[in-house]
């Protein structure tokens, strides 16, 4: 899956205006075999001061459930425009969500953090269950979440 985040490209600074100044980063989020309905998963970027920069991906297409991704909602204001064009199906138990995003060089190794919120209907809501710094040195190193995420890794 290759994503250019067209909407954010125009508004947010973290995506390169020109591909030459950007790098392809692959985010892999593998869920535990929790055995329930598909999980809603939001990946988004905050800066060093905790300020929202933009959403990388929203897995789950029923907007009425987005409120259960509470940190994402708080950070982004819950605006649907934030996920326009970057939503997909929810992620099944034990499955992996793999996305590739072009990210501006200026955002890498600059104190930004990737947050992952998850939520399962009739299960738990896990705001920011993964918080991983966007640093090249962490490439390919898995981090565990404390909710449904078994492992999360970014590959630069």
């Amino acid at each position: 899956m290759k994503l250019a985040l067209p909407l954010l490209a125009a508004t947010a600074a973290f995506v390169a205006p020109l591909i030459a100044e950007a790098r392809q980063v692959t985010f892999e989020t593998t869920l535990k075999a929790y055995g329930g309905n598909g999980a809603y998963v939001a990946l988004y970027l905050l800066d060093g001061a905790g300020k929202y920069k933009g959403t990388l991906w929203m897995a789950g297409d029923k907007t009425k459930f987005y409120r259960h991704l509470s940190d994402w909602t708080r950070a982004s204001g819950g605006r649907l425009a934030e996920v326009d064009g970057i939503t997909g199906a929810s992620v099944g138990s034990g499955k992996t969500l793999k996305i590739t995003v072009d990210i501006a060089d200026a955002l890498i190794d600059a104190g930004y953090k990737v947050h992952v919120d998850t939520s399962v209907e009739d299960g738990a809501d896990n705001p920011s269950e993964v918080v991983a710094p966007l640093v090249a040195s962490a490439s390919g190193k898995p981090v565990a979440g404390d909710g449904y995420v078994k492992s999360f890794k970014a590959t630069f």
Partner: protein
Amino acid sequence: MLRRLHSFAGLALALMLVAIAATGVGLSLKPAVDRLASPAITPGVSVAILTEAVAARHQRVDAIRVRGDGAVTVSFNDGAGKKVERVDPRTGAGLGAYQQSPTFRWLADAHRSLLMGDAGRIAVALTALGLLALSLTGALMLARSLGGAGALLRPVRGAAARRWHGEIGRLALAGLMLSSLTAAFLSATTFGLVPFAENPPPVVSASGGPAAPVGHLAGLAAVDVADLERLTLPARDEATDVFTLRTSMGEALVDPSTGGVLSFAPVSTMDRIDRWAIALHTGGSSWPYALFLGLSTAAAPVLGITGFLMWRRRRVAPRVMAPARIDEADTIILVGSEGGSTWGFAQTLSRALTDAGHRVSLAAMNDIENAHLRAQRLVILAATYGDGDAPASARRFLDRLGNLERRIPVAVLGFGDRTFPNFCGYAQKIVAALDAQGWPRLLTPKRIDRGSAQEFAQWGRDLGAALGCTLTLEHVAERPKTSAFELVGRETYGVAVGAPVAILRFAARALPRFEAGDLVGILAPGSDMPRFYSLASSQSDGVLEICVRLQPGGLCSTWLHNLREGERIEAFIRDNPTFRPVEGRSPLILIGAGSGIAPLAGFVRANEARRPVHLYFGGRSQSSDFLYEHELAERLAQRRLTTLRTAFSRHPFDAAYVQDRVAADALRLRDLIRGEAQILVCGGREMAGAVAETLETVVRPLGLDLAALKSNGRYLEDVY
């Protein structure tokens, strides 16, 4: 149109409905199961107290939720990953890990999406709309066939599939409408077709002061656990984070330091509607309601099957061969049939006319055209649908009638059910239209009650007379399966007054099921046309008992009167559910004359519950044809019969008819009718007419009329 829509939607949705209904029935058990697992939360503990108790046991608590299934759960992390446990809502004590039932989860998924994701969800949503359409059109059709919206509670009559479809459909109607309407709404919210429901409070930051003990936060102490939906605790590492407290009233943000409510957003109207829809659809916390929905849903497959049977029965094209081509025919028989039985009568008529030398052609009433008018006459056989509506094969008839070029002589024969208030209503509409348009009458219009072969034969004689030929109409709907019964007893009355009536009792090795008031059809040797007699006994009496009046020249009655004990007859039972006392303890007024006493005596005999029963009997002579005299005296002593009034038309000094007794007892009868009494009349047509006339004057001061009593089943006639 209404019916076509109903049939089409029903067939298309049948399979989907079965799958969705089956899972729905399973899910309807969930609230009851949940309630057993999680008792209702009793008020008295505040959210602050509960949170304090829970927080004392864990390093980090993320959220406390009161789930849809009634369980109170806590998600926490004690360093070994995030876990969810159930807690006691009063003490906060842990009750072990919380787990959803995989069975119910699977059922819910199958019910909502047929395990096929969004494609399945769309299919389910369309099915819900289809079910809604079926419920609405079904209710309208039922009301129409029973005679209007106010008649929706009347007994449903007709063939078994039709009766079951109507009775079950009526019971399930409310549940199915609620289920389908809420399902359609919930689907619309899932696909974002209705505005977003939740109304989040404005985001605010906490005061940033040191966190106070949870148990002392005023904003949390003010809310009872019984009202809680969800409490999200502030993140540990963020001083500005707040408590998010959601209740059925709305969502509040509570400062972790001061305990004050920083902002509050009441539940929006859309959210409230959404919650109502979910509760109405799933049963929410009311398990009896959920079971009611489940039962209604379980009716859906039964309705599908009975509906399919009705549809197939209607579709089976009657195999009727026209003996002559339209352009050669002198007589055209036009048929307005609903279930196909009128085509059978048309076939019998067509054969008899052909035998009598006529050239006959047949057509559906809907197909009437100018080509038919080159014949010398039309014979219209018209059934009625519901309360005077056109049957299936006659729906366009009246529209086409006015545009025809010529007028030729017409005979109209109506088929209907006398127990309906508007007997042969459609045939009467046709007669009125024909008269208004100046069509010459070939014959006075007649009406046939419940497919009576005798009445049909009589009409055939009249038609033959009008055509100058002899017409013998021996109509057999279908020769029924008979079994043998042996005559075991007889009493003969009325010989002295010239009106012999025999009470005949028959036995069989295994008696079929029947009740007093049902009919027995008897085939006399050499005849295919059964004669029907009302039964005076029930299966439990061990004999089949009838009263047979000797008809001068009557084939069957003469044969029965000459039958000797030990001889056998071929007979079959026909249900007669339209002539039966209502259940319960309300009084019965039974009125009968001559052999019409038979079913009434049977009702008295079966009155083990000793409900009040008042019998009026009319005969000719007390000494000669007082049928059941001794048995009725015994029943009076047993209190199975409350009062008995008799009238004898040849009494030396007190000659009277049964209607005279009815008139004399007007005051008493009025009291009984005010007390919800039901009236059952059995006997000859003349006597029934006189009784009806008398009763009309009896009930008028009550603001009632017989048509109204008839329509709600409180005045029943079995007339021959």
